[in-house]
């Protein structure tokens, strides 16, 4: 589904990704782990079109997408959930969903139903300004909003960062419910979550793919993986 070949990305003169090559199969949940500065977020931002690669190619469903704008990539079914948990704070929860429904041409009641089904408590907050939601609720709203309009590939950056354990559990359950329905590339440091959800794991180190793990028993070996964090 997603093939990345010899990708080099730099911020000015500072090269962040070096010759990154990887494949993600259709329907997989691929996780990226690594220390701060390893290039995980940079990789997601490059896939979604926020950064332009110096070299290399990104092929999505057989089509070269490097250099395409985020709006073009949205139309191709890519959805990006950024790290900062930034919803449109001055819009209500319903309006946050409505704007995604309108973009995708999905009927509003259908979109609302889709989002509230993954987290029914959101029904109580539909008329609340999204800025008043807790961090966890915002994250759930962002993931839910990304599901509006038939997504094909979710790109999620550190969905559990800074959240309480109970909320993390909620998010893991939501993502778990999406398994086999939508492909996902998730940057995450929470190894328990990686252990539960990952079909494929990439370890990034200093801008390079240090290891690729597909074997479940290796993914479950959190002690070994901790060395890379």
């Amino acid at each position, binding site marked *: 589904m997603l093939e990345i070949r010899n990708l080099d990305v730099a911020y000015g003169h500072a090269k962040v990704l070096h010759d990154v090559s990887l494949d993600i199969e*259709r*329907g997989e949940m691929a996780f990226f782990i690594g220390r701060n500065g390893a290039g995980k977020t940079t990789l997601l931002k490059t896939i*979604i079109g*926020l950064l332009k690669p110096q070299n290399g190619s990104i092929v999505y469903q057989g089509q070269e997408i490097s250099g395409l*704008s*985020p*709006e073009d990539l*949205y*139309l*191709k*079914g890519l*959805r*990006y959930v*950024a790290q900062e948990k*930034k919803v*449109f*704070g*001055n*819009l209500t929860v319903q*309006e946050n969903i*409505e*704007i*995604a429904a*309108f*973009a*995708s*041409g*999905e009927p509003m009641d259908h979109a609302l139903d*889709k989002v509230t*089904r*993954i987290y029914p408590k959101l029904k109580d907050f539909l008329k609340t300004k999204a800025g008043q939601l807790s961090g966890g609720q915002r994250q759930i709203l962002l993931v839910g909003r990304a*599901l509006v*309009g*038939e*997504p*094909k590939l979710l790109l999620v950056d550190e969905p559990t960062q800074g959240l309480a354990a109970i909320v993390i559990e909620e998010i893991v359950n939501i993502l778990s*419910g*999406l398994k086999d*329905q*939508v*492909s996902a590339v998730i940057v995450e440091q929470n190894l328990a979550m990686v252990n539960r959800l990952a079909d494929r794991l990439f370890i990034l180190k200093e801008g390079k793919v240090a290891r690729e793990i597909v074997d479940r028993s290796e993914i479950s070996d959190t002690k070994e993986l901790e060395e890379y964090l």
Partner: protein
Amino acid sequence: MKKELSLDEGKAPCDKPIDLLAELRSTPIKEHGVIDLLGIAAFFLVITPLLSTHRITDFMIFCIFAMSFDLLYGYMGRLSFGQMLYLGTGAYFCGLFIRYVSGNPLLAILAGIAFAGFLSMLLGLIIVRTTGACFALINLAFNHIGFFLVLSPLRGITRGEDGFGVSASKFGSLSLTSRPIMFGFVLLCVLLVFYVLRRLTSSPYGILIRSIKEDETRVRFLGYNTFYYKWLTFVLAGSIAGLAGSLTALNYSYVNPNAMDVHSNVGVVFACLIGGAGNLYGAIVGGVVYMIISNLLPIYIYRWEMFLGFSLIIIVFRFRTGVWGYIQRSWEYLVKRKVVPGAMKKEAI
């Protein structure tokens, strides 16, 4: 859930741009009931005996201008210091149309709106690519250019600093030179602009431009071509400012470079802040309050601008959602008990 999210059957989301006319037709009318319009009409009719018909007509024209500015600044978050360019363009083209083509005031108004809209279409292609201070200043720069053009190089047509008289002919049995008729006509225009903008800003288009105000990049993540919507909003705001300009020319029966004076941009910024940005009621309330301050205060206070400055400081520090925002929140607090008073302070301008 499983049936809805399919990897193979998922169709690509549609990228059809928002059709503003369809938005106007599809937004439920009951949300923007006649009560709002009657309230605004009643408000202007009530304050008219306190001042004068001509003055209130002037106030209402300024309110139309304030609503055009509010669409840009309050809703889309783009502060412009050059909105007077489109007001002036509307005024000049309305006046020139009457002078050289036809005395029909309605056609002249349409000419004013069309040329202001056309100018904003052209300049918008450059201007909406910028944000923040750059957006404000590039608007100011174009306003300066326009002011200079009507003052000097085009003086053969515009009669430079002297300006020229505008005497519209009768429209049927109605003459817009009659002050009560002009008052009624401008009131209708205020209500029409309010109605159209209210419906648009309550539709997905309105949600979209408010989202652009918050975070344009994230709106692009949702598949929107933000450039197009910013440009559309810019053109809409420019055209409405052109309407205000055309009405100014007819109300004063005169056009001179003051209609495009760059310094007058401060007035509309003040009006929006006083009334409360991002709210059409706020634009109307702010427009009226500003006009009262700038028209009546000079009679009693020599350096009245200082009072305006102080009032703005108070608004920025104490009433950050403007007069209308404060009234609204106080009402909600008293009636619905929905808002904690302290929450008012958290609102940003």
